[in-house]
């Protein structure tokens, strides 16, 4: 049960604290993380259960992951139209390298649950999620996928997609505006930056 719950949830409405601007040169060097990694590697590795190498590798991998999040082509309902709008010229998620909508879940990293998840569709969404290779992320878009939304009372609608698959980011709205959508994507990028895959793959041993 713990494993499933491990993915932390980010509130898209949360405002990130302002970054402190380093003043002196040593602080600037520390800001890059290189000095810290070198000096406090033993403590840090004990803390994060990683070695220096893998934390750097982690950063590199996380960078590659945030810059090429390939979504699955799967729209469920109204939000799918906004998904199209987001990928079109006006909003253009291609800027983030995300225009590569893969039809096959095997090659994708990101699942937009865009729309109402009915009870009949739920096992299919689950299957789609299971077909995706690790690492994978899920964004629940719109109030239907978050909580059932306006169809909460209906007899055949699942109250939120998080009942069947773990969700990383929720985007509210019915349907969310493309700007909200982009904000959700940026939140997901922030979240991926904090992930450490060395530990996940057992490289710390």
């Amino acid at each position, binding site marked *: 049960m713990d494993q499933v719950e491990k993915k932390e949830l980010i509130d898209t409405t949360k405002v990130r604290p302002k970054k402190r601007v380093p003043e002196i040169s040593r602080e600037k060097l520390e800001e890059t993380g290189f000095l810290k990694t070198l000096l406090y590697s033993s403590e840090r590795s004990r803390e994060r259960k990683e070695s220096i190498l893998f934390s750097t590798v982690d950063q590199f991998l996380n960078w*590659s992951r945030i810059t*090429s999040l390939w979504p699955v082509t799967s729209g469920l309902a109204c939000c799918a139209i906004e998904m199209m709008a987001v990928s079109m010229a006006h909003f253009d998620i291609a*800027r983030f390298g995300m225009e590569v909508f893969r*039809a096959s879940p095997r*090659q994708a990293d990101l699942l937009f649950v865009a729309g109402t998840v009915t009870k009949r569709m739920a096992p299919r969404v689950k299957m789609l999620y299971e077909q995706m290779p690790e690492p994978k992320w899920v964004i629940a878009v719109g109030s239907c996928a978050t909580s059932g939304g306006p169809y909460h009372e209906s007899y055949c609608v699942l109250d939120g997609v998080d009942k069947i698959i773990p969700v990383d980011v929720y985007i509210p709205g019915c349907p969310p505006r493309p700007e909200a959508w982009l904000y959700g994507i940026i939140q997901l990028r922030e979240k991926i930056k904090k992930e450490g895959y060395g530990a996940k793959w057992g490289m710390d041993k």
Partner: protein
Amino acid sequence: MNYYDIIVWILNWLRVYEPVNSFLEKYGIAIILKLFIIFVVAVIVLAFVALTVMLLTWLERKVFAHVQARFGPMVTGWHGLLQPIADGVKLFFKEDIVPAKADKWLFTIAPFIVFVPAFLVFVPIPFGKSLIVQDLRVGIIYIIAVSAISPIGVLVAGWASNNKYSLLGALRAAAQDISYEVPLALSALAVVLLAGSLSTQDIVAKQQDIWFIFLMPLGFIIFLIASIAEMGRIPFDLQESEQELVAGFFTEYSGAKFVFFFLAEYAHLFAIAGIITTLFLGGWIGPLIPFLHPEISYFIWFLIKCYAVIFFAMWLRGTVPRVRIDQLLGIGWKVMTPLALINLLLYGFLMALGVI
């Protein structure tokens, strides 16, 4: 001259070739040096093609985006230039799924059957007067033969995946490649007829006065269309058409194996552009650029022509819809093949009459 000679020349210039060679000859194992140099050549070509392929994936996305009034990748690096690296790293470190019902061995080996020939094609393509791996005497035949291997890999991939979409995609790919191989080879043959040689360097040298595209426009058009079909790009991308067959023969592939298919696709694009440049656009021939070594000037001319062809293919992708499989085969057998035959016959007559 070829790459091998160039490296020998460089080693000579560094004054290491002779001593090492004579030292090894003393023990009768001079072949080691030769093998080493060949290995270096292979690495250079592989690295160059791999880099170009990365650039091509970026270029494809940018060109495609600009056709559609978008920007394409912008965030990663300068105008998204680092995008291919990020994609590659990400895909290499993704989980590699082998479906439970798949044929494991064939499933694993298929990407390489596709990937290796796509790179082998570069052996007889002249990037400059002496920038060539090996000027084979049967260059054209070699290119056609080697590029005919990759459909086997596609077929293997489709079969091994144990997925109906994959199988359909693979069968389509096989049918398509077989039917477009014929006009491709025939129009290349007409070029051979004009040049009087199978060697790529000879063909380029024959175009010193006039490019073959002007002598034989029909052959060029046939070759261009057939090679786009051969590559499986829009409007002939039936083997991997997203809206029909999900992702075609590589539907079930993920992670690193998918990268190989991806690389092979763009390597193929680059190779075809190189072949078209060599056969019709005068290869590396062009006015010498002042203040540059002629070899570099040739190289630049070759790349310019090559990228023009590549740009055309990308432009086409943004403009036309895809044809249907039976229409595709119909065009292949009913239009392209007879036209290629007529083209060959026509130029045979012209040659016999001594007009050209």
